């Protein structure tokens, strides 16, 4: 059967088909990646080269001073540090809070555990638009606008539902015997959780960390609303003010955009299997 089916397909068209397929895939790859390469190129050029109509080619002379200027004069160093601080704090808090809660919901015995899970998962449906103005008013009344907390608290709150969902589904897969033997050995619930169970779900922790990193690092709406003091601005907002300041100096703007992008792309290239898995896990939420 198999041989007759294969014999019916002539070899040559199949070969041509494969080449056409590869050509299509390569064209798509160029479409997806070339704008970013173009950005990398013009971040290393000066205005005379960019505006001479030769905007697309490799830079004649690599102008790293654009990066130095963006970091110092453009304030990008400050934005970068703020982004790192807010993102790292949010990731840690999301991990601590969500892992404890997911554990209590999936592995401990109490009446309202299912209700609590449903309530938290509902949060995945809520667009941040809904919270923008009420949060702005609360933060204003608490005098928290223009502080790191005004970003960290909302980022953590909106990161919790997805994190509880992902961590919870991993906790469910841990065999009961692990806990039983820990308790036999005299561990209390805290020790069982922190030193026995938590280390078992490292992949889920990585998934949540990556997910939270991406959403905090790239977030704009809260960042632009809750902070207008340059001192506390994160990269996304900082980029907008930088573009305003350096309107015609594409090289420096390009350098700023590159500095915003490189950490994400680096993490991706190092962990690309894990990142792809995280994004799939985040989407397929039951």
């Amino acid at each position: 059967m198999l041989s007759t089916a294969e014999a019916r397909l002539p070899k040559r068209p199949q070969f041509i088909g494969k080449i056409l397929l590869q050509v299509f895939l390569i064209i798509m790859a160029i479409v997806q990646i070339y704008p970013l390469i173009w950005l990398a190129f013009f971040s290393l050029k000066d205005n005379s080269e960019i505006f001479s109509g030769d905007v697309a080619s490799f830079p004649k002379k690599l102008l790293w001073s654009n990066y130095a200027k963006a970091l110092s004069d453009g304030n990008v160093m400050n934005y970068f540090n703020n982004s790192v601080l807010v993102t790292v704090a949010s990731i840690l808090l999301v991990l601590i809070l969500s892992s404890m809660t997911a554990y209590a919901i999936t592995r401990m015995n109490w009446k309202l555990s299912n209700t609590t899970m449903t309530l938290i998962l509902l949060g995945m449906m809520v667009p941040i638009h809904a919270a923008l103005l009420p949060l702005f008013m609360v933060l204003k009344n608490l005098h928290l606008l223009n502080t790191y907390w005004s970003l960290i608290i909302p980022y953590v709150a909106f990161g919790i539902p997805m994190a509880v969902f992902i961590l919870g589904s991993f906790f469910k897969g841990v065999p009961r015997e692990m806990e039983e033997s820990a308790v036999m050995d005299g561990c209390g619930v805290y020790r069982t959780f922190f030193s026995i169970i938590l280390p078992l779900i490292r992949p889920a922790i990585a998934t949540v960390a990556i997910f939270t990193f991406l959403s905090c690092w790239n977030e704009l709406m809260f960042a632009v609303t809750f902070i207008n003091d340059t001192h506390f601005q994160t990269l996304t907002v900082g980029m907008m003010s930088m573009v305003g300041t350096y309107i015609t100096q594409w090289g420096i703007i390009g350098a700023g955009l590159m500095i915003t992008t490189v950490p994400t792309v680096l993490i991706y290239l190092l962990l690309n299997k894990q990142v792809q898995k995280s994004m799939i896990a985040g989407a397929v939420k039951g």
Partner: protein
Amino acid sequence: MNSVFSNKTAIAIFVLPTLLIFCGIVLVPIFVSSYYSVLDWNGVGKGAFIGLDNYVEMFKDPRALHSIRNSFLFAAASIFIQLPLSLLLALILASSVKGEGFYRTVYFIPVLISTVVIAQLWSKIYNADYGLLNTLLENIGLSELAQDWLGQKKTALAASFIPTLWQYVGYHMLLMYAGAKSISQDIFEAAKIDGASRIRTAFAITIPLMKPILKVCLVFSVIGAFKVFDLVYVLTGGGPLFATEVPSTLMYTTIFNTYRYGYGSAISVFIILECLVFTVIINKFFKTE
């Protein structure tokens, strides 16, 4: 054993802080927004209760209706251009072509990059004088097509769709690829033995079996279109002359530029309801199919 895992204090310590933050920041604000939306209020002092007037005004305001129309066009562009392309790429990559892993990695890169960066990058691509697009058109002898893509009403809307479609093609591709890969290989073997061509196999077997993930992608692209903010805010700010305005940018300017807190909240409640209703509709549609 049981007593250890029914420890009420431990449960409280594990759950209460999370629940407090979550309810305070995510759930309660929805109700607060709904309350604001029935007020005529500029943020100072007490607002006056005006019932559903803000909603009535929204459905009469040509600017608001236009922004809603734009978000629907956005959704349509995503459904009819982006998703088919993602599906095509996913099916090709899932059929074990050479370089599968490489292409998947490359197509996915734009997904990870901040929308602010994407928008700035595309505003340079579209730049009328020195942009990549016009330079490209001039180089291939189509200089009469070169124009100020974001600066004129007739091209601005389409030009602001393209970066989003471009950015998230790889995302939907990845989800669909995972869906296609999770189908048992036996089925494909059987199809091959029966002599089904690749294209027939795709339409008769792969795509129908990918329904659950296609539903997820459809929900994401529709909801994503209704919520779109970053890209439009940075790329055009809703201009020129409101041509590219979407509900969330209108909400933003209504609240923070014209201080109409009540009206802006009505728009935000509308966005939530819109997302909810369409999620339900899409789920129903896939169930009856």
